[in-house]
């Protein structure tokens, strides 16, 4: 609860009498101040006739047939009431306030009655006080500045000789106490707790409860008076005393210990046990009986306090075991009131260090609750099971079937509890069955549950998935069923899982997602399922070749129900569906970005000329799209169908497998059914390696160790790197140098560290940041000293050096430097490949044009978890005066300790 600050300045009061209680500030002065304040604004008017009675006003208002009519009656009466207030009519003030309170309840403004309420409170007549305090509780809340006035009124009445006047003041204080009021009146309340009068005592105890809720610092002053409350016989005093102690103990561990250790004549736990025992064993007492149970209100409060006292305290728990068992077995359960007590007892048994037999008893009670016909009892059963599931999971598991049944309850309160409880019960053994129910629940659940439920399903699946295939299937189902309620991170995490799956899983994913995508597109439901469309677009874009290829027919598409609804689409049909989605006006821009890039990728996955052409036409239309982002992508991608067509296949290569953002917490005890095939590879790197492997074998002993050339300053001003190309800003034929760099393909395109770096992010990153050259490297290199360096290629004045440096973990940073002594080289391109077990990330080169005495650097990051000896094949291509040159070599004499 947040309570607004008080305003420090209050204009009616002189500053020296500000806010704190002033003994000189008695009722007479209050009246005077109030009256003066009113007279300043209210000119004297004519004397009013006898006002309408409350009863008559209510009749009039009820007789109004329309809202307008009601308004006019109310406005007329309000105007009249205001005028009597102005006139200082003290005889009818009480009646007028009562009417105003009724009007207030109908929703009309009544703040102008606030000061009048204070005047009523200040009146000596009990009727005035009673109505005045009622008005104060309804019209003032603690934000009101008049609180200073009411504080003084209250202080006055708390000292009254009439118990009912004191009672009214305490009641008002309990309802509207602000922190300031609490501080000012705490000592009065403390005095009243010690009053011999039970009527005042109980009210004062609850006032103290409110005061320490507002100002916990004040707790200490109430401690001595509170302790004695438990020795009373009066139930009102007992229940308020227990309430107060409960609040204190919950608030501060120190107070909890205080009550446990030194509570006067008797220790608190035996004392409470005694009171509870007396309640149970005492015969029928008409005064406190509720359907045969003696004072259930007091019993429940005591049970709750026992729970707090027994928590983590073996000795206290021991002292209450017997009474809890007695309550649990002897309470009549045919009525709500008996179940009320049992419910509280079960909570206490589960929370304290109780005996195991008692816990069994408690869980059995909950089992009975769960089968009860009364919805309310079922609700509290679920509620309690949820609170105790962490204490004793296996006991709760026994009721799993019943709990899952509750997911189908028409009542949202029960469904919510059942859902939370079901997720708490999911484990490795029951995941398949539970998930089936929960997915069915997700599909039919209310909108407000979908976000929470889908995230919980994703989490549970990640944690307990019995197999990779099951995990993927579950994610696909969540995508399908949660629609747009799915949280964004699920999209990226699903893509990451697909990306790092085995090839046949990727094909499976593409096929499954295609079915969903196609159905959504055809049925026009794509707008409601944008996360699905995004994941599907990404997957089909990456693995579209597997989708349309007959080669993947071997993959079984039979689902859990034995249905195989997969129909292999033709390339044209896939493109048609993309077109339909891309031209839809309903999909979000980000979904369309996924689709557009995916479509571009498909142009390299699909083989026929007709599909390529079709894709080109669709992409071209985006060149004039109204949305700037999409338009830019459209223009950029269309370039890949024209001038830079030869770059397209390499540029739109498959993404490398993405690293999970956080390691999944797979339960270690779970069986991994190992759907993962052993030849799980990273296709992108193979591609490049194969390319190089396919060429002539290279000699590898020709690397000479030569002194390093003096590193000249980096000079490549053109730095036409790939990002510039894609930025599409200055793509004119006059910049041919830009082109070949693109062949560096994905390794360059994707900043590897970007979280959830979708291809989109990589390609669509702001183009204004070409990787800066690395002048710092030259210095570092000298400073590092321990660095290994070799010249690996030297021909015609062109020289390439590779240096290697250890990095954190099983990784190393390689830097390739190319220098040319005589010629200017254009279209300089550096490529590299490593064995399959080693992962290679290539940074952007510092440039593609190499002038004499200039230098191009290319940084490569090598991760080698298995620490196999590093072999590196490199290929360098460039143009000298328009003549293309291609050279390659292999390096396998890296220092042996490079990865240690």
């Amino acid at each position: 609860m947040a309570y607004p600050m008080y305003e420090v300045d209050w204009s009616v009061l002189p500053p020296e009498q500000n806010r704190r209680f002033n003994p000189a500030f008695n009722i007479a002065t209050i009246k005077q101040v109030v009256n003066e304040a009113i007279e300043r604004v209210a000119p004297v008017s004519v004397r009013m006739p006898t006002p309408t009675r409350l009863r008559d006003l209510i009749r009039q208002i009820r007789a109004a047939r329309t809202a307008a009519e009601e308004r006019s009656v109310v406005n007329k009466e309000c105007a009249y009431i205001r005028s009597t207030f102005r006139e200082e009519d003290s005889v009818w003030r009480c009646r007028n306030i009562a009417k105003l309170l009724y009007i207030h309840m109908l929703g009309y403004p009544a703040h102008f009655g606030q000061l009048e309420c204070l005047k009523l409170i200040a009146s000596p007549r009990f009727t005035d006080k009673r109505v005045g305090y009622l008005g104060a509780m309804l019209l003032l809340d603690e934000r009101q500045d008049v609180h200073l006035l009411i504080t003084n009124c209250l202080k006055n009445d708390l000292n009254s000789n009439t118990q009912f006047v004191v009672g009214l003041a305490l009641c008002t204080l309990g309802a509207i106490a602000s922190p300031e009021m609490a501080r000012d009146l705490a000592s009065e309340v403390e005095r009243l707790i010690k009053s011999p009068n039970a009527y005042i005592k109980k009210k004062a105890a609850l006032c103290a409860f409110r005061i320490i809720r507002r100002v916990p610092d004040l707790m200490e002053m109430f401690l001595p008076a509170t302790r004695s409350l438990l020795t009373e016989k009066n139930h009102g005093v007992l229940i308020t005393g227990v309430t107060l102690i409960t609040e204190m103990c919950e608030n501060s561990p120190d107070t909890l210990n205080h009550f446990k250790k030194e509570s006067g004549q008797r220790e608190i736990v035996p004392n409470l046990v005694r009171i509870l025992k007396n309640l149970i064993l005492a015969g029928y007492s008409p005064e406190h009986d509720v359907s045969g149970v003696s004072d259930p209100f007091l019993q429940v409060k005591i049970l709750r306090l026992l729970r707090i006292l027994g928590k983590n305290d073996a000795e206290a728990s021991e002292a209450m075991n017997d009474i809890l068992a007695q309550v649990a077995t002897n309470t009549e359960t045919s009525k709500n009131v008996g179940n009320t007590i049992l419910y509280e007892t079960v909570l206490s048994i589960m929370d304290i260090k109780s005996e195991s037999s008692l816990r069994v008893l408690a869980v059995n009670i909950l089992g009975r609750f769960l089968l009860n016909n009364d919805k309310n009892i079922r609700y509290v059963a679920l509620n309690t099971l949820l609170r105790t599931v962490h204490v004793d999971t296996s006991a709760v598991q026994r009721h799993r079937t019943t709990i899952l049944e509750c997911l189908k309850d028409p009542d949202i309160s029960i469904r919510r509890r059942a859902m939370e409880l079901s997720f708490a019960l999911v484990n490795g053994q029951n995941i398949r069955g539970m998930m089936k129910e929960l997915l069915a629940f997700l599909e039919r659940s209310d909108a407000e549950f979908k976000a929470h439920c889908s995230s919980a399903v994703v989490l549970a699946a990640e944690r307990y998935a019995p197999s990779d295939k099951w995990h993927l299937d579950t994610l696909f189902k969540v995508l399908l069923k949660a629609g747009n309620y799915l949280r964004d991170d699920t999209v990226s995490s699903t893509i990451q899982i697909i990306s790092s799956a085995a090839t046949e899983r990727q094909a499976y994913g593409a096929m499954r997602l295609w079915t969903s995508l196609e159905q959504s597109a055809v049925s026009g439901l794509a707008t409601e399922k944008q996360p699905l469309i995004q994941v599907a677009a990404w997957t089909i874009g990456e693995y579209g070749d597997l989708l349309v290829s007959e080669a993947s027919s071997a993959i079984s598409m039979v689902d859990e129900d034995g249905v195989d609804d997969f129909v292999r689409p033709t390339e044209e049909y896939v493109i048609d569906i993309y077109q339909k989605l891309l031209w839809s006006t309903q999909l979000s821009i980000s979904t369309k970005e996924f689709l557009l890039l995916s479509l571009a990728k498909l142009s390299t996955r699909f083989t026929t000329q007709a599909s390529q052409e079709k894709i080109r036409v669709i992409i071209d239309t985006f060149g004039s799209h109204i949305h700037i982002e999409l338009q830019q992508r459209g223009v950029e991608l269309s370039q890949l169908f024209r001038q830079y067509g030869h770059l397209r296949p390499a540029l739109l290569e498959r993404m490398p497998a993405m690293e999970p953002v956080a390691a999944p917490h797979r339960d270690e005890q779970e069986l991994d059914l190992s759907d993962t095939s052993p030849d799980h590879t990273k296709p992108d790197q193979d591609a490049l390696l194969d390319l190089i492997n396919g060429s002539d074998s290279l000699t590898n002993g020709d690397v000479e160790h030569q002194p390093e050339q003096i590193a000249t300053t980096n000079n490549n001003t053109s730095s036409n790197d790939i990002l510039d190309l894609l930025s599409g800003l200055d793509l004119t034929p006059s910049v041919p140098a830009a082109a070949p760099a693109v062949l560096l393909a994905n390794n360059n395109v994707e900043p590897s560290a970007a979280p959830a770096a979708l291809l989109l992010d990589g390609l669509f990153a702001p183009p204004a940041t070409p990787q800066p050259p690395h002048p710092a490297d030259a210095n570092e290199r000298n400073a590092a000293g321990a660095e290994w360096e070799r010249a690996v290629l030297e021909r015609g004045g062109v020289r390439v050096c590779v240096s290697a440096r250890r990095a954190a973990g099983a990784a190393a940073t390689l830097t390739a430097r190319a220098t040319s002594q005589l010629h200017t080289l254009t279209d300089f391109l550096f490529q590299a490949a490593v064995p399959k077990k080693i992962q290679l990330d290539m940074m952007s080169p510092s440039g593609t044009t190499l002038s004499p005495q200039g230098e191009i650097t290319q940084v490569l990051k090598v991760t080698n978890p298995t620490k196999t000896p590093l072999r590196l094949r490199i290929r360098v291509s460039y143009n000298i005066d328009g003549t293309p040159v291609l050279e390659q070599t292999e390096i396998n004499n890296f220092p042996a300790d490079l990865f240690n």
Partner: protein
Amino acid sequence: MMQFMLLFSRQGKLRLQKWYVAHPDKLKKKITRELITTVLARKPKMCSFLEWKDVKVVYKRYASLYFCCAMEQEDNELLTLELIHRYVELLDKYLGSVCELDIIFNFEKAYFILDELVLGGELQETSKKNVLKAIAAQDLLQEVSSQDNELV
């Protein structure tokens, strides 16, 4: 602790409101409106509890009137139902076979009774007799103090 209590009719008309937490008037109105709509939309067979914002709403319908309490999470929902029932019994005893109309015309009495039963959001008296005795004594005090006119 009870945060507030509302009494409203099946038509959604507010009949009584008691707030034990401080909210600006505007917020009170908003909460009241939303809660009335939510509760009225529930079917009769559903349970009496509703998790609504950060409070637990416990409500029960008596004839044409809904009694609706907003409790904190730790409070015993079933006990709150007993509390509501106790309040209804007291109104019934005091006003004699209470109906909605009685509460409309005697709303201030309904408040007085509630204030003798609950203080600061917590139950202060578990004996029906004591509550009614206190109310009767105060009514008497009121008559003595104002024989001269029938105020309310």
